């Protein structure tokens, strides 16, 4: 198991998977994927077979910046505060706002997921002092700029809220996954936070799956509870199909991760905040393309949350008459 990667495999690997291989696949302006779907899909299964025999533990820490357990907890608390606030506004909009017409099953999910995120905030806040941190020092703006997620108000209608929710929850799953190696590296000092992070991580995945199911069942969206093979940047906003790992992240059977830098680059425009609550209907003349998250930390085809044209080919299925 600890045999270094033989040169033949290194050569084979670089031949099969150039650095920008998945970027090419992900680039919707490219016809590469369309011409070679079976090749790309075959790679998903051939590569792990080639690479898995070459697991090299010493080269395994490849998850971005090294964070201490305290830093991971502060980072997670920031994201959880944002998520809890996002659902709090969703609940308000479901009561008497843009989400008032949503089916009860969707409203129930918004309430339930919001409760979970609020619990995460509460419990992570309770843990942080034992790590030397101060939960009150971890803040988000009074009015986060949620318009940055889609380029429009996500609380205006159920279809947009659920799409934004999918992006947020999938990103949350990837963000927690991106920190497990940091917590492991911290040894005993990281054990409690690692256990907590794992317990939260899969619940975020249940949320993500639930939101995806609602989009599929209620809106007829072409989406499943799981992330697709070679997921496009309209399905996930981070680099889900990361190459260069023995783990076949681009397969639908394996979820990808996101580093802190990547997540913060996506979240930063939201954290800048706005003067007015984003739940307030805004004049929808300018969709503010500048507010689109541009993950500078992610090279190649920035898998960002592009504002989706209402009738573009890559857009979600139009909202049914129900809504």
């Amino acid at each position, binding site marked *: 198991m600890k045999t270094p990667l033989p040169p033949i495999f290194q050569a084979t690997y670089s031949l099969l998977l150039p650095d920008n291989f998945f970027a090419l696949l992900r680039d919707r302006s490219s016809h590469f994927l369309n011409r070679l779907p079976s090749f790309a899909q075959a790679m998903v299964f051939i590569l792990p077979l080639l690479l898995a025999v070459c697991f090299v533990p010493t080269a395994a820490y490849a998850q971005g910046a090294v964070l201490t357990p305290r830093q991971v907890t502060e980072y997670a608390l920031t994201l959880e505060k944002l998520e809890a606030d996002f659902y709090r506004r969703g609940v308000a909009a479901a009561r008497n706002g843009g989400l008032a017409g949503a089916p009860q099953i969707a409203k129930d999910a918004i309430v339930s997921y919001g409760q*979970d995120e609020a619990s995460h905030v509460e419990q992570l806040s309770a843990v942080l002092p034992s790590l030397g941190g101060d939960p009150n020092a971890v803040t988000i703006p009074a009015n986060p700029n949620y318009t940055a997620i889609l380029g429009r108000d996500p609380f205006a209608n159920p279809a947009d809220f659920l799409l934004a929710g999918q992006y947020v929850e999938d990103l949350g799953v990837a963000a927690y996954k991106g920190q497990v*190696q940091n917590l492991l590296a911290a040894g005993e000092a990281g054990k409690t936070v690692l256990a907590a992070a794992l317990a939260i991580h899969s619940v975020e995945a249940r949320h993500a799956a639930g939101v995806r199911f609602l989009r599929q069942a209620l809106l007829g969206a072409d989406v499943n509870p799981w992330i697709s093979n070679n997921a496009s940047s309209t399905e996930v906003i981070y680099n889900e199909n990361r190459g260069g790992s023995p783990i*076949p992240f681009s397969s639908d*059977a394996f979820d990808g991760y996101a580093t802190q830098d990547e997540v913060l680059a996506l979240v930063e425009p939201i954290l800048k905040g706005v003067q007015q609550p984003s739940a307030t209907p805004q004049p929808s003349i300018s969709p503010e393309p500048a507010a689109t998250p541009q993950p500078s930390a992610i090279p190649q085809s920035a898998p960002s949350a592009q504002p989706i044209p209402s009738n573009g080919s890559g857009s979600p299925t139009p909202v049914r008459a129900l809504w």
Partner: protein
Amino acid sequence: MKSQKALSASRRNLIKWGVWGFGGLMLATLPQVATAQSSRSSTLTFNANDVGILNFALLLEELEAAFYAAVADSGQITDSKEAEYVRVLGAQEAAHVTFLRSVLGEQTLFATEDLSFNQDGLNAILSDRDQILNTAVALEDVGVHAYNGAGPSLTNPTYLLAAGSIVSVEARHAAGVRALLGRPTTEPDRDRLVRDADLAAELNPFKGKAYDELYTPKQIVAIVASLNLINNPINGALVA
């Protein structure tokens, strides 16, 4: 590729469940095959290290993959969307099996053919759609709690990341099947098979609906045994 995956799962099913796919009539005509299947139940011994954990995960993935393959062949899932979920979930579990086997290589503890599944236990589950989907939820939840529980014991960071990459997919499965049943997608406390008092305290700083608690391998073995699906005796330091 998807059809290949489904075909592969179906072939696996024929191998593992022997004559199940042919129905009772064929069962009567091929007693020697059934006998051979049920008599082969070698003991599975899991060591308390990374290799033991990955082999233990492999056992759960094999169980899930075999379950979905049997469900697909049972014909009990007639709704097209539900059948599609069963097909994809089965293919994803099979992909996890392939991945874990390739990672373990020579350290793989058992071959697929070494596993002996309980036909009667399976037949009881395959009786109707609700029973099948509820069992799927239970198996997926067990998988989530098992991967979470094993995570802090892993020492190889790539293995931990791989476990994380898989466990969130299992959680998506559990949520998706719950949704098919018209139930909320998170795990309510009443569905949990290990009560608060029995949870390992050091592994569970957080408990409740908002958390997927960490179960020990020993607790997972007890749950799997209660499902009455695997004949192989299970032991070793990991599950002691």
